[in-house]
């Protein structure tokens, strides 16, 4: 078990440092902090100009959604880059527990996603006047944590796909934008066509954002427990699907060299 935990925690952090393309400050600051900040300001100001929803609707929606910058891109890099860097062969030739290897990569991604969301909420408070009640903050933090986890699970699935598909960052770009559209970030779900809101309900973020909005408006955590549990379920489902697909590819690669990565 100790070895499992070491691979999960220590291995996960080292792999993240080795595989995450934007880890240098010159890349990290504009990508992980600058881009979310401008996304927040853009959609909040646009929404206020259009008088469509309240200011907090956009601040909460975007501050939660920007965690996908880390969770979708970061997680995709953390898995799919193994193939791009040619390290997949040595990794798969090792006896390390695959669940520890795979899931361990999610932890630094999750922490980074949390940091990006907290930074964006803070920017919302500083520049746009977002003022949730102090009592709401712990519940809001818990909801953000669950939502970042579900986004990271989604990133795990994309990362696994990236082991097989060469141009997975095209899919990651698409996923990020579709999450903006389908998950109720800037457009309420009930305004979207039925099929779009249905897709949105199957994606991460949607239930988390809805719960975060209610809590930010003063609702207790117990009132949004159903939404939070659904988001947690989505997190488990995507992470499990990502891991199952990763194992499937590993087996298929032994059988028919589909990864052709050595």
């Amino acid at each position: 078990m100790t070895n499992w935990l070491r691979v999960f925690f220590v291995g996960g952090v080292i792999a993240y440092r080795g595989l995450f393309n934007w880890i240098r400050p010159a890349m990290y600051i504009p990508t992980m902090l600058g881009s979310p900040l401008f996304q927040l300001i853009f959609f909040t100001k646009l929404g206020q100009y259009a008088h469509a929803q309240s200011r907090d609707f956009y601040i909460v929606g975007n501050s939660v959604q920007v965690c996908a910058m880390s969770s979708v891109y970061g997680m995709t890099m953390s898995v799919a880059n193994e193939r791009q860097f040619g390290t997949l062969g040595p990794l798969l030739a090792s006896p390390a527990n695959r669940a520890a290897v795979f899931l361990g990569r999610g932890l630094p991604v999750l922490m980074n996603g949390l940091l990006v969301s907290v930074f964006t909420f803070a920017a919302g408070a500083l520049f746009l006047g977002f003022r949730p009640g102090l009592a709401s903050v712990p519940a809001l933090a818990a909801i953000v944590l669950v939502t970042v986890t579900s986004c990271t699970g989604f990133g795990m699935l994309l990362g696994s796909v990236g082991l097989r598909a060469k141009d997975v960052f095209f899919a990651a770009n698409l996923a990020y934008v579709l999450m903006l559209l389908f998950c109720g970030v800037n457009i309420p779900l009930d305004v979207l066509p039925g099929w779009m809101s249905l897709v949105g309900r199957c994606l991460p973020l949607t239930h988390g954002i809805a719960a975060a909005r209610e809590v930010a408006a003063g609702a207790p955590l117990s009132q949004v427990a159903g939404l939070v549990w659904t988001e947690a379920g989505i997190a488990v489902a995507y992470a499990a699907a990502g891991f199952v697909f990763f194992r499937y590819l590993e087996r298929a690669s032994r059988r028919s060299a589909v990864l052709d990565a050595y």
Partner: protein
Amino acid sequence: MIEAINLRRTYQTTTGVVRRKRLDVEAVRGISFSVDQGELFGLLGPNGAGKTTTIKMLITLLLPTSGQARVLGHDVVDDAREVRKRIGYVFGGDRGLYERLSAYDNLRYFAELYGVSGHRQRQRIDEVLELVGLKGREKERVEGYSRGMRQRLHIARGILHDPEVVFLDEPTIGVDPVGARDLRQMIADLITVGKTVLLTTHYMFEADALCDRIAVIAKGEIVGQGTPAELKGNVAGGRVTEIEVFGVDEATVVRLRGVGGVSAVTVEEQDQKQLLIVQTTGERELTQPLLAELDGVEVGRVASREPTLEDAYVALVTAE
């Protein structure tokens, strides 16, 4: 320590876009060999001969289509995890390392993957860095490393967990001569510390200098097996005649192959000229009949010598 019994691997591939046709490509066609404890065994063969496919099966990255392979008594199919714990795998080339990490962190990561305990890690990493001559450079990012340094790091990673068996897949490929000589010394040192090594290489002098035994593989089959001296013995009794020519054509080469006593003719391009390497069976002097076939071709230096391992290799892989 390593045992391959009638090992076979077939890949499926497709051709065409509209009318897709499935093709079976036999990469390895039922090869058998064994490697004893403490032995350095070489697998020689041209590109596409099946060397890397064989290694991939032995290190559990590929399943054999049929046949059996065991490493340290563990089946590579049914007991893959046990095999993985006990072997090291080193391949040649620039890739396969975490570029943004230092050499130390690369090794630390693989120490975690191989279950080297926390308190043992520092000591073991220092030992292997010392062994491969990277001590003092371990904190630098790998992206700034030369090809030779990367290759040393590959070897350090392969032996980090102190495996009993080490697989080296063309470890000196693309490394400069001095660096390659250091790497060869490193490989020889592995044997002195008790490792069993399976090495694939294109370089004959490397195999000749390092290997206790060699299997020559061509088109997925083992076409010769033995010690370097035994393999050379296969063409001994004969001689090798080297003829420098300027502008020889294929028809002339075919005529040379037809000369009685000639077993193989290869052409080596050398800038403006070509070097004809003619292997002959028996002790009969064939220089005159060979030169007679070269009538009309400008001939330079002509020399006769004893066969080398390379001659033995060429004879084996070009034999029909």
